[in-house]
């Protein structure tokens, strides 16, 4: 079981949950499991083709998975996944 941490911009579509336990053994599988459980997240995370939007960064234990193995990065027990969409607010 790994933990996916959701920033507040995603929580509204995940019943307000801040952290969700998933079984997926890769980043891609974990994201698919997450969206399977909270389908409303699909619009925020996935393109119409079902791929992950480029403006959503994914970090495994603080490391950007772009510089690991992308969506195929293996996820172990007690790992922490963060989905981090860009936010612009400043005023």
């Amino acid at each position: 079981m790994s933990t996916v941490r959701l920033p507040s911009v995603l929580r509204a579509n995940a019943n307000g949950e801040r952290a969700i336990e998933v079984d997926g053994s890769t980043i891609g599988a974990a994201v698919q499991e997450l969206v399977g459980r909270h389908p409303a997240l699909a619009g925020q995370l996935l393109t119409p083709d079902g791929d992950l939007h480029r403006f959503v960064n994914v970090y495994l234990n603080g490391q950007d998975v772009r510089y690991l193995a992308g969506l195929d990065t293996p996820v172990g027990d007690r790992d922490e996944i963060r989905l981090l969409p860009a936010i612009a607010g400043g005023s």
Partner: protein
Amino acid sequence: MPTAIREISPPEAQARHAAGATLIDVREQVEWDAGHIPGAVFIPLGTLEQGIAAAVPDKNTEIIMQCRSGARSGRGTDLLQQLGYTNVVNMAGGILQWQADGLPVEAPESLTPAQQSRYSRHLLIPEVGTAGQVKLLESKVLLIGAGGLGSPSALYLAAAGVGTIGIVDFDVVEASNLQRQIIHSTERLGVKKVDSARKSIEALNPDVNVVTYDEMLLADNVERLIAGYDVILDGTDTFETRYLLNDAAVAAGIPVVHASVFRFEGQLTTFVPYEGPCYRCLYPTPPPPELAPGCSVAGVLGVVPGIMGLLQSNEVLKVVLGIGEPLVGRLLLFDALDGTFSELRLSRDPNCPTCSDEARAARERGEWKAPAAYGADQPFALGSIGALGGQAAGRPS
């Protein structure tokens, strides 16, 4: 049992220093601030034992020790020899003899009595001191936006004695701003934000030269607006402005301290061109507006931009003073509800359209073209194999 100490005269020390020997000044901060030998390394005697390894890792380096009259540096010479340094000499007569011999001393710009009093808490910190305060007074910081992030930053940077504060904002003060934009006030409703900010800053610290730009940051003015500034504090509210600013700042080689906020959360990092990632490395493409509402739509807890804005000011001060570890290549996340800070590691994208080696070379040839602020979204393909370097991980859409 102290070993014998060799001594050399100031003119000989000057010649050896010029030939590559390391000159270490072991006096106290106030003495250093009052004037020191150009190129000397400052390590007060009390911190010599801890400080020497970082300053001079090679124990065979030729070292010249120096203080006011030669006494403290004599003890320092003995200490270094006990620590295993093999080539240490003491400069006889210290800086007093150096000056008597007519050799040059670097005297930092001094502060007025009013400034010494105003900045006394800074002057007490060895990492700031007179020299650091002079650096702050000579520094030029540009704030993009006098809003949620810019308001607290502007006040604290002004209080810290940043000598020139530029402010870019085209808005006027509205009632809904006052829940968090503490540089403005109720009596200034309807006033231009740049004018309101100027009033508050000048009331707080007359040392600060406030330069106001009552305009929106756009592609055709960004280069002019940022020219000549040492550091930029990004307190804008839109992706478009953030990308524009990023591209122009990388081209101009100016560090940008970035923060953004959403309800109870904030993100913060410092972009130093070519040393670490830039904004496009972090977020290659912006989300569509409906997925990333700003504060005016989503709301924000007033203290969150306050906290993030002050963390930005902290970064600005570190960059200007050249101290500490700026958040280069690190993204700091703040969650006000959990009361937690988390840190994520960021990397330069070797294929970044703005700061890659290729983009830099093109820029130097005068051939670089800024990417569109709103590029195409190239998604991670869930079915494909993610690759290194951020290239094959996304597929063209």
